[in-house]
């Protein structure tokens, strides 16, 4: 840990070491089937999600207890978000967006625990999520509208002369979507956790230690906020992309 600097020096080496994929048992190379810390935390994310949504609502009481009302609030928030942004016909895809939201939310929050591994800090993980959204949404668009889905790139409200230029821009922005969708989440997580570690490394110098510890506390609170906002943004952008697929004409 960067904070364990006994000799009063700065130890920045471990700032990015928290994102290393390591074997859980034994030593040796990491193969695709090796149980790693990623496997462990992915499993814990599923356990936490199930604990909130299945175990938390086991009473099914009319007057919900604390865990049930938390689950209901989460469900209601995502449901309203899908309905507001994607429209009524977007509600068919609510389970997918709810799954994405819960996964990213718990990945971000569990990653904030000390010594934890942040699964969403890896572009491999967020990239799979973002590209699956991209392919799903594109498939929905083509299945629902056929060739009319391409109206998304042909802005009819614009003058005819600038429509080809706009079409090029729209196509580029459409294909950049999965990249920005995944890098936004991974980048936010890497940056936030690295900043906490950098402040923690300054705690090794006695003169600035109180300031740096306060800064760690402040950044930690901010990161808890960011963890929620990024999960929310990830889900909301999925809704926006879904809306474009369901209603391609501008």
């Amino acid at each position: 840990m960067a904070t364990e600097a006994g000799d009063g020096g700065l130890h920045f080496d471990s700032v990015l070491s928290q994102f290393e994929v390591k074997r859980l048992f034994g030593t040796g190379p990491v193969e695709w089937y090796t149980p790693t810390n990623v496997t462990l935390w992915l499993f814990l994310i599923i356990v936490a999600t199930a604990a909130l949504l299945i175990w938390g609502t086991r009473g099914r009481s009319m007057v919900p207890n604390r865990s049930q009302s938390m689950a209901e609030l989460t469900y209601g928030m995502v449901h309203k978000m899908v309905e507001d942004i994607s429209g009524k016909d977007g509600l068919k895809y609510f389970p997918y967006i709810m799954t994405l939201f819960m996964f990213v939310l718990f990945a971000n929050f569990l990653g904030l625990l000390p010594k934890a591994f942040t699964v969403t800090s890896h572009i491999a993980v967020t990239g799979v999520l973002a590209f699956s959204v991209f392919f799903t949404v594109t498939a929905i668009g083509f299945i629902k509208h056929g060739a009319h889905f391409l109206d998304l790139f042909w802005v009819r409200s614009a003058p005819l002369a600038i429509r080809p230029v706009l079409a090029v821009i729209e196509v580029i922005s459409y294909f950049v979507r999965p990249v920005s969708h995944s890098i936004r989440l991974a980048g936010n997580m890497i940056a936030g956790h690295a900043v906490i570690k950098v402040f923690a490394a300054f705690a090794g110098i006695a003169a600035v230690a109180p300031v740096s510890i306060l800064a760690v506390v402040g950044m930690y609170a901010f990161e808890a906020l960011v963890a929620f906002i990024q999960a929310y943004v990830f889900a909301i952008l999925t809704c926006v992309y879904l809306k474009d697929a369901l209603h391609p004409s501008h």
Partner: protein
Amino acid sequence: MEGNIGELGQYIGVGLTAIGMGGAAIGVGNVAGNFLAGALRNPSAAAGQTATLFIGMAFAEALGIFSFLVALLLMFAV
């Protein structure tokens, strides 16, 4: 003082990517400031627009994150 000139350029480049963060800061500040200005003029309409606020912030912020990504690539991938 000895060193590799390529490494020097690499570190200067990493430092320059921090300028991108300033651009993202201006963008996010613009979104939040304009939202607040609009929300204070018509508070009853503000609650319905928080989703738009977050979408706008996410788009503005993503470009700052891209500069951070360039910095990481320069540091570790080049």
